[in-house]
């Protein structure tokens, strides 16, 4: 049926049939002998908010530079709107709004001068939206960019990124170093644009609590490899924390493999028993598990994206549980 609600951009996996706006096709980036990322493949479909997560040094920045055509990958292809990012970047970037990791603009320019400068680069430019947003963020109009606070700089760059009504928004850890109030302002503004235009976005961030309800799909980079690439609902559906006490009994004299069916990504031995995060959750298997000899008081709880990320990224050998 036809949706009565304008902002109902696709959340289901069926949306992935549409041609991706952004695509990383087996991208590898090497610097001399060190590898920043290796054979990374994922794509961002229209209407998706793709959260690319990873610890510092996991390879996010190199990957984002390749995707935006600012760097040529050592192997593989980056594609924007179906065209090679590196060769078509000049035209493609007219349709992309970027908020970079480091707020970067000529320090002597005021926000309005900056807007004036940017409008010439974009065929579609909504100047009114810039002044509206600057007012809302209370960014002083006569203060040069270099003297604004970190939070104000980010707001200015978000206003610039949204002004050309971009088909794709790339936010590269936009709230890094912002205080909690400035962070909330930033995400609210982003949510407003999602509501108004159903914007497609790639977001890298350490602000996992904020992205929790916003992301529709999640990728996790770990030491240059993409170990997770799936819809939020699917991801949350297959992860659980399982806690139980393990007791030796007459028939059970050792433990060690009872979690195998669940593909544990992290197992901690606590005073009271076992605390595990598993990546292959199955309710009926768990019903049998809790009745196993020597397993007592087993309980399973669902996890937030943040908890899943910590379990995956924090383990020395943790992988997506699928290898």
């Amino acid at each position, binding site marked *: 049926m036809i949706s009565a609600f304008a902002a109902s951009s696709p959340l289901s996996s069926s949306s992935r049939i549409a041609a991706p706006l952004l695509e990383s096709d087996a991208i590898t980036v090497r610097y001399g002998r060190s590898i920043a990322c290796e054979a990374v493949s994922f794509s961002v479909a229209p209407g998706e908010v793709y959260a690319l997560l990873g610890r510092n040094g996991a390879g996010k920045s190199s990957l984002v530079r390749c995707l935006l055509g600012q760097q040529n990958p050592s192997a593989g292809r980056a594609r924007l709107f179906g065209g090679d990012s590196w060769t078509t970047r000049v035209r493609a970037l007219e349709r992309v709004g970027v908020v970079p990791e480091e707020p970067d603009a000529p320090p002597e320019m005021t926000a309005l001068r900056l807007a004036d400068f940017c409008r010439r680069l974009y065929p579609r430019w909504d100047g009114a939206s810039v002044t509206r947003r600057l007012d809302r963020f209370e960014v002083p109009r006569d203060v040069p960019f270099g003297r604004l606070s970190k939070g104000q700089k980010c707001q200015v760059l978000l206003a610039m990124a949204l002004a050309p009504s971009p088909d794709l928004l790339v936010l590269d850890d936009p709230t890094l170093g912002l205080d909690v109030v400035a962070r909330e302002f930033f995400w609210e503004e982003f949510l407003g644009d999602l509501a108004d235009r159903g914007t497609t976005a790639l977001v890298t961030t350490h602000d996992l609590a904020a992205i929790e309800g916003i992301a*529709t799909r999640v990728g996790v980079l770990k030491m240059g490899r993409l170990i997770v690439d799936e819809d939020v609902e699917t991801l949350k559906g297959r992860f659980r924390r399982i806690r139980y006490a393990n007791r030796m009994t007459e028939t059970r004299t050792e433990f060690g493999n009872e979690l195998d069916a669940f593909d544990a990504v992290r197992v901690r031995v606590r005073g009271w028993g076992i605390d595990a995060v598993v990546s292959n959750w199955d309710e009926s298997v768990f019903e049998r598990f809790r009745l196993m000899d020597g397993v007592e008081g087993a309980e399973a709880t*669902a996890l937030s994206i943040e908890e899943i990320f910590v379990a995956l990224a924090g383990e020395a050998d943790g992988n997506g549980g699928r290898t």
Partner: protein
Amino acid sequence: MRGLRLDFSSASPIWSQIDEGMRRLVASQVLPAGTAVPSIRDLAGDLQVNPATVAKAYQRLADDGILIVRRGEGTYVADAAPAIRRAERIRLVRDAASRYASLAASVGVSADDAASELAAAWRRLGNAKGDRR
């Protein structure tokens, strides 16, 4: 929005939490018939979730006749919001039963004892209703 809380560590998806939360608010008359509900944009900002997630919940609520969309005006609680559907009722009870069974098991109460406690609670409920008459 008051009375609507999300749990990101829940097994239930966010759109479904919004859907259920709104149903509860309507069923308990916190949102009486004819009340305007927040716009998708406002509720998304309020809950800090993707507007598409709110839209998905609203779409279900509209499909089930709980919300009515008046073009250009807004979204309202339907005048005769239908009672909770049978499938929904069963699911709610099944979820609560799982929680109860798990609690009983964890404190070492047998299935029989747990069942008789439930029956006793049910009887007390009946008495309480009788008292009110």
